[in-house]
């Protein structure tokens, strides 16, 4: 039986970041994707059945206050994410990340190879291929966004729905802030030149791609796999979009847990 959800916070550059913790067993960190996590999601429960899941909020994303506003360079970002993981107790642990969070997880594994166990990346950002460009996630009409991010648009709508009775301008502002924080780190192409650093990753790496990802072309999975120095495997999840963990929480969690067991 998994433990109850614990919420704490750590301080980074004068801003607070929320840290969620649930489950038992070896630690597994998760860095959320585009839009962040304004609420707990079933995917995390599925992971917590076998692992102690620790979910720190990236600066500027829900739970991360306005921490992005002091990060002016990519070096600022990666140093802050590194400190966040350390303060959340994830140094040396297995690490998973989705889209934006997946990109930072890869950075950490590349720059501080000893700080990450195994790596599970769900459609990570950070690369750009002119022949097959990543979809612009920001220049979109609001009604088109849910179907771009999830195979089932309702999954995104559920994540972003204002809690009943909240009725505050702060909720939509927080969601816009998450988009801004992603823009601050990845504008305009999503390309942080992570490709240069992929050969530094020696961790075993699982690449998960939603079969219906409408943001990151599937070919990017192969580019990641080819460049990463560690052992890699690619898993495609049917019925999942860019944020595969929202569309298919059980399948994505099971894929990660199964692979981590096989790899050990």
């Amino acid at each position, binding site marked *: 039986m998994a433990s109850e959800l614990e919420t704490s916070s750590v301080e980074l550059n004068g801003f607070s970041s929320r840290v969620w913790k649930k489950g038992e067993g070896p630690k597994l960190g998760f860095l959320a994707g585009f839009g962040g996590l304004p609420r707990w999601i079933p995917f995390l429960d599925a992971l917590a059945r076998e692992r102690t899941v620790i979910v720190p909020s990236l600066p500027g994303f829900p739970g991360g206050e306005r921490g992005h506003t002091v990060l002016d360079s990519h070096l600022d970002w990666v140093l802050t994410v590194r400190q966040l993981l350390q303060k959340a107790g994830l140094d040396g642990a297995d690490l998973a990340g989705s889209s934006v969070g997946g990109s930072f997880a890869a950075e950490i594994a590349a720059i501080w190879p000893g700080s990450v166990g195994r790596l599970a990346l769900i459609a990570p950002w950070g690369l750009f291929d002119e022949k097959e460009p990543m979809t612009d996630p920001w220049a979109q009409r609001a009604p088109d966004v849910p179907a771009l991010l999830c195979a089932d648009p309702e999954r995104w709508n559920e994540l972003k729905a204002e809690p009943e009775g909240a009725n505050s301008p702060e909720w939509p502002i927080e969601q816009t802030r998450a*988009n801004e924080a*992603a823009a601050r780190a990845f504008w305009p192409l999503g390309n942080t030149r992570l490709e240069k650093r992929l050969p530094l990753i020696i961790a075993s790496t699982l690449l998960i791609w939603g079969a219906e990802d409408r943001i990151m072309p599937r070919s990017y999975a192969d580019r990641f796999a080819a460049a990463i120095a560690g052992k890699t495997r690619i898993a495609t999840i049917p019925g999942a979009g860019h944020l595969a963990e929202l569309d298919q929480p059980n399948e994505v969690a099971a894929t990660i847990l199964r692979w981590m067991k096989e790899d050990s």
Partner: protein
Amino acid sequence: MVSLRPLNMPSLWEKRAMKLMWFHLMPYTELPDDFRDKHPSVWVDIHSSLFDPRRAHHIYNDFMDELEFAAECGFDAVCVNEHHSNGYGLMPSPNLIASALARRTTDTALCVMGNSLALYNPPTRVAEEFAMIDVISGGRLIAGFPVGTPMDTCFAYGQNPSMLRDRYYEAHDLVLRAWTETDTFAFNGRFNQQRYVNIWPRPVQKPHPPIWIPGGGSIETWRWCAEMDHVYAYLSYFGYQAGQATMDGFWAEMDRLGKDRNPYRAGFLQFVGVAESREEAYRLYSEPAEYFYGRCLHVDPRFANAPGYTSEATQRAGVVGQVAQVARMRRFDTLAREMDAIVEKGYVIIGSPDEVAARLKEVATNLNVGHMMLLMQFGNMDKDLAKYNTQLFAERVMPQLTDTFAEWEDRWWPQPMKRDARAPLIPFQLAAMAAQ
């Protein structure tokens, strides 16, 4: 025939009344009739096949003729602005046009409205180019510093929306120091580092050319303008009715900050079409107005905003940018595209000279705006009609507005060199004849 300003006329620079400024957007005039149906956006990804450079050769030259004509007619200033990848604004570099105008006008202020500071690397480029225009023109420059729209800055120019404003403020401080510090200095900014800042040339106007800030309705911008003592200009395409709330907000904020209600703290954009009668004006200006509101404002809503472009304080206040407003108007079907509604909503003021004068006086008074920036060429209006509009306004409307706000001092108007100290500009034709 238009009455050109006689050379012995008293200088405009001592004028103590509402300023009438002639503003050009330089719209491409050949967008097809089915533009709105066939093309997603006039801005950012407008298709290159719509642009005919040979036609644009004539468009530019016609537009520059119009600006020069407006100066000859006695408008206090001619105004140009900056847009990128834009089918209704053909001036990625307004400085090029202003520079040409500096050589073809003599007594008219040159209002560049303006240069989007965060787009220039290093921003001292703006300090240099504006100083050049100020020196060439003998001190006639008004220096506009817009943040720039999301379409221009974030999408067309790839600037990071989350850092744009901080970069803009820093660039503003750098340009001001570059204009005013006498010794070479090192600039150690958050975004810009320069070991040797020392621009040549230096502006004629001291301590620097007047600075005007085109902005939306954000309280932060109003406060900043008040703190810096810059002019705030509300450049809306939706006329005096829609502008009232914004200008009321601006003046309420000035009251709170203990600033006087000097109308020259503010500028306001208004479309105007004048003719012998209201019926005639309606007939003449319907097509260009409908072209502008129907085709030129056709911006894909996906470019209306970029995350971080609008500050959280502004989001809380519920203020939205102009193109986001259009998106909202479209959604609720309240954007006027037919002439009846365009006129009724006050986007364009039309009428006989007396009607236009009365309405403009009322607008200036109600909005308390001493710098009236008039769009008298709009949409696909041709040169003949633009000149007719301009000349009739100069001859029959302008004289009726000479006493408005005469009791206030305009501390934000250029202070050029005295006329007899400035280089005489020989008219082009004479120079050509002399050369033969």
